């Protein structure tokens, strides 16, 4: 893969209000450099709207996104020629083979015939679909279709790769393979991985932006996000009948029912009760910390 000059994407106070008044994004600002940005947030947080704005599909109502010094809403073609995009609801032409389908997108991305054929061969190898290359896409599994999706996104060797909820519908093995593939793609390009599944970004993201209610909660490295909840994560064994009360009192990231009671993993400034022990924070705890803090603030 080629190396790119230092690429940079700047998002300045972007807001998006849909017809009917629904505000999907508000005052969203972010500076993104090379590496993998994990955009993490609950369903309906505004992730897909942001992805569509960055992919030049929809226009922001306010604010702007700058790529290579240019506002992408005013002049989208510069970005489009170096953009790879895999939308959340990715479908295929079921009666086409992977090769035919990729030839279609290669043409749309402006690749000439020879380059397209060479690139398609390379990518089918990368996504492990060489043996199925001539089979109709309608016969592919969900994971195989998703791999075709990532192959089309990489056809033009993009400087900015946007993948929106790419692991939805994949089985655990395919999810793992996909994460590994994304890790390899990082390097000197910008990869924006939008997801509501923490484990998707845990292993590969170089920075993480948490989004909720259309607003950016925090943007930092995974290590910094973990540091923020250091000392606030507790594991506590409680009787089953107290679980509901514990859940009402503390943000709870995990519960496991065992013979000695319910093992609860929760967030608290100080010990929630006798027998509670401090635990090493995970990204899931950090995610819960920020999202629950935002909910409290919004309430």
């Amino acid at each position, binding site marked *: 893969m080629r190396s790119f000059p230092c690429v940079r994407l700047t998002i300045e106070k972007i807001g*998006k209000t*849909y*017809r009917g008044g629904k505000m999907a994004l508000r005052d969203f600002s972010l500076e993104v450099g090379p590496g993998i940005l994990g955009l993490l947030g609950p369903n309906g947080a505004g992730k897909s709207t942001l992805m*569509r704005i960055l*992919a*030049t*599909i*929809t*226009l922001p109502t306010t604010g702007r996104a700058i790529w290579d010094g240019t506002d992408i*809403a*005013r*002049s*989208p*073609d510069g970005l*489009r*020629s170096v*953009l790879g*995009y*895999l*939308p*959340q*609801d*990715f*479908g*295929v*032409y*079921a*009666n*086409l083979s992977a090769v*035919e*389908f990729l*030839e*279609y*997108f*290669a*043409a*749309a*991305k*402006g690749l*000439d*015939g020879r380059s397209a054929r060479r690139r398609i061969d390379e990518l089918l190898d990368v996504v492990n679909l060489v043996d199925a290359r001539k089979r*109709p896409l309608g016969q592919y599994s969900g994971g195989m279709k998703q791999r075709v999706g990532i192959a*089309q*996104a990489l056809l033009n060797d993009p400087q900015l790769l*946007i993948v929106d909820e790419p692991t939805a519908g994949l089985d655990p093995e395919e999810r793992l393979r996909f994460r590994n593939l994304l890790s390899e793609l990082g390097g000197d390009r910008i990869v924006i991985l939008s997801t509501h599944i923490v484990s998707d970004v845990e292993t590969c993201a170089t920075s993480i932006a948490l989004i909720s209610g259309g607003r950016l909660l925090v943007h930092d490295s995974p290590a910094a996000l973990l540091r923020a909840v250091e000392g606030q994560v507790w594991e506590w064994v409680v009787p089953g009948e107290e679980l509901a009360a514990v859940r009402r009192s503390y943000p709870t990231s995990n519960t496991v029912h065992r013979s000695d009671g319910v093992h609860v993993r929760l967030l608290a400034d100080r010990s929630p009760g006798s027998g509670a022990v401090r635990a090493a924070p995970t990204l899931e705890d950090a995610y819960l910390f920020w999202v629950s803090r935002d909910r409290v603030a919004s309430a």
Partner: protein
Amino acid sequence: MTTWRLLYHLARADFLQRVRSYGFLVTLGFTAYFCYICLPPHEASYVTLQMGGHRGIYNSAYVGTLVAMETTLILSLAGFYLVKNAIERDIRTGVGQILAATPLTKSLYTLGKTLSNFAVLAVMSGVIALAAGVMQFARHEDATIRIWPLLAPFLFIVLPVMAAVASVAVLFEVVPKLRGGLGNVIYFFLWIFACAAMAGLHAEGGGWLRGADLMAFSVAIPSMRSACELAFAGCATATDFSMGFNFGEHWNLSTFQWVGVEWTAGILAGRLLWFGVAAGFALLAGALFHRFDPSGSAAEKSKRW
């Protein structure tokens, strides 16, 4: 070169997606059957074209022209509903959002979709043309198959109209109010209006206006009437004329020899005009296209196109 390659791939992918299905095979079966019923035998209880109780001998020119006119009439209506789903498919599958994130322009996209629609309708027309040759042989009134008189009406009568239908289908898909059932109803009435308006043209001579008659009645019927008049005096002015499926008692039509349309430059110009109209509609569709933005109005999008 890149533009042509892009258009080719846009049309090809969409075309292959549609034709590689059992549904399309069934459609082709129906089109072949349509050709069969367009050429009723003497003893049939219906006719498809008669003038004063006469019709042409089923030679290549007559078979080709008659079937081409009937095909134009039917496919200009049914074909629209058959192909009016090219953009909807890209919305439904999400393929459209990926295309929207590429440098592909809106006008090239709608041109590509128009080409794909046209290719589907052209294949159907081609199957009917082949079936027409087979039917001429089967009816055996004139068993000599002459390729050009048989196929020229399909090239010059059917295909230009199919191009127009293909582009109107795309245009209807990009206008939100015309995309659904209302658009289907409006097209039906537009079709009736177009048929009636063109039938009333009665354009004569070899000029482009005669060739521009959408259903090509003005292209072929006057010449058929002249040939009929040579064989049966009074035929040219007979008011007893019908085209389309006319059921009734046993018709027992007498036949005359007709050698076909003389494809003058004027007539061809009039027919080719419909390709220009198709290109115009496709480009207009491009200007109105929302480029898969689920939220943007045309006015908002036009700021950056």
